[in-house]
């Protein structure tokens, strides 16, 4: 069985008096694509934010590759998010003033890569995701599906260890959403990237290797963890 790359242990987090996570436990193994499902308000996005070091739990532990994320300070978590994690959200959240290829190059530029090299790398990711020739367009000139593929390219360009995807197809029609999922799964498998995919759509979750359900702030694993 592959190594546990990311783990939440007994994680609790409330927003005001409303508990979002109540003893959540999850193990994400290196290289797997794990779907986190659950109804609205179940705590699945909060769990993703804790695993990604965006939120810090009130109780419990978050482990990533032998390190305690929950014990890091803001600067350490910020650098982990920038250098080691990638993100795709429901709405692409592209910077509207920048072109598609500049958007994709952003994580590399923030990591100190030379502009020319970053843009070349960005263009190769756009080609790979079927967006060749669209690199100069701004987000306003792209369709929803194209914009989400640009966001996916941006999430993967720095070759993160973990890609966090929160309802990445939520704003897309069914066919376009499936194309984005197909590209995400292929790219993640090719690169060996671990993916934590939050979705309430079974058809999207079916692209993952296995799924867990978040219910009332706790995690239920319904399928066996992968072997091998």
């Amino acid at each position: 069985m592959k190594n546990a790359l990311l783990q939440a242990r007994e994680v609790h987090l409330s927003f005001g008096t409303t508990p979002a996570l109540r003893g959540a436990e999850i193990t994400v193994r290196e290289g797997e694509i794990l779907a986190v499902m659950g109804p609205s308000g179940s705590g699945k996005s909060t769990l993703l934010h804790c695993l990604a070091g965006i939120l810090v739990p009130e109780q419990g532990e978050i482990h990533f590759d032998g390190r305690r994320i929950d014990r890091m300070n803001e600067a350490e978590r910020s650098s982990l998010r920038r250098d080691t994690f990638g993100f795709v959200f429901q709405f692409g959240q592209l910077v509207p003033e920048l072109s598609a290829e500049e958007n994709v190059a952003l994580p590399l530029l923030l990591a100190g890569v030379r502009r020319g090299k970053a843009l070349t790398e960005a263009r190769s990711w756009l080609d790979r995701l079927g967006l060749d020739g669209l690199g100069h367009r701004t987000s306003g000139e792209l369709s929803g599906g194209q914009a989400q593929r640009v966001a996916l390219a941006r999430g993967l360009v720095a070759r993160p260890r973990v890609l966090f995807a929160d309802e990445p197809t939520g704003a897309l029609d069914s066919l376009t959403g499936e194309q984005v999922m197909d590209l995400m799964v292929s790219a993640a498998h090719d690169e060996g990237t671990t993916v934590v995919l939050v979705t309430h759509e079974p058809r999207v979750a079916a692209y993952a290797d296995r799924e867990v359900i978040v219910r009332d702030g706790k995690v239920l694993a319904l399928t066996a963890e992968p072997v091998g």
Partner: protein
Amino acid sequence: MTVPLTLLGLLEREPRHGYDLKRDYDAFFGRDKPLSFGQVYSTLSRLARDGKVVISDLEAGAGPDRKRYVITDRGATEVSAWLTEPVAPEPHLQTVLFAKVTLALLLDRPAEQYLDTQRAAHMQRMRELTQVKRTGSLVDSLLADHALFHIEADLRWIELTAARLDALAQEVRAR
């Protein structure tokens, strides 16, 4: 094969005469298609032949019949195994799932666990079909899509039922 198992499940709740058993069945599961008395009695005699029920006494119930049927250990084991086993994911299984959930609630069994097991079986089948879509021809993909949409509809029903289990339990147990 749902009728014999459903009748067995109803007998696990309490021993019944054939007439009362038919009324129970029709009230829960046979509103559109009530069982005939002939089917009830022939099913009960097969269940008795196979050792899954026994006749306890010859006192008349609400109807004209005098035989009162009691589930045996073998019958109860069969009901238990049937409830625990997920149904093969395919279109039009809601009636079987519905019978299982309702019986589980009547018998105070863990209906939520059964739904979770079923959800896992459905998701596993959806993953297999998604793999067919990703690697197969367009024809394969369209066939897989047809199955995927039906299985997804079942899953939505499972979600909805899981969210309403407490209210459903109150309603069926009050009958």
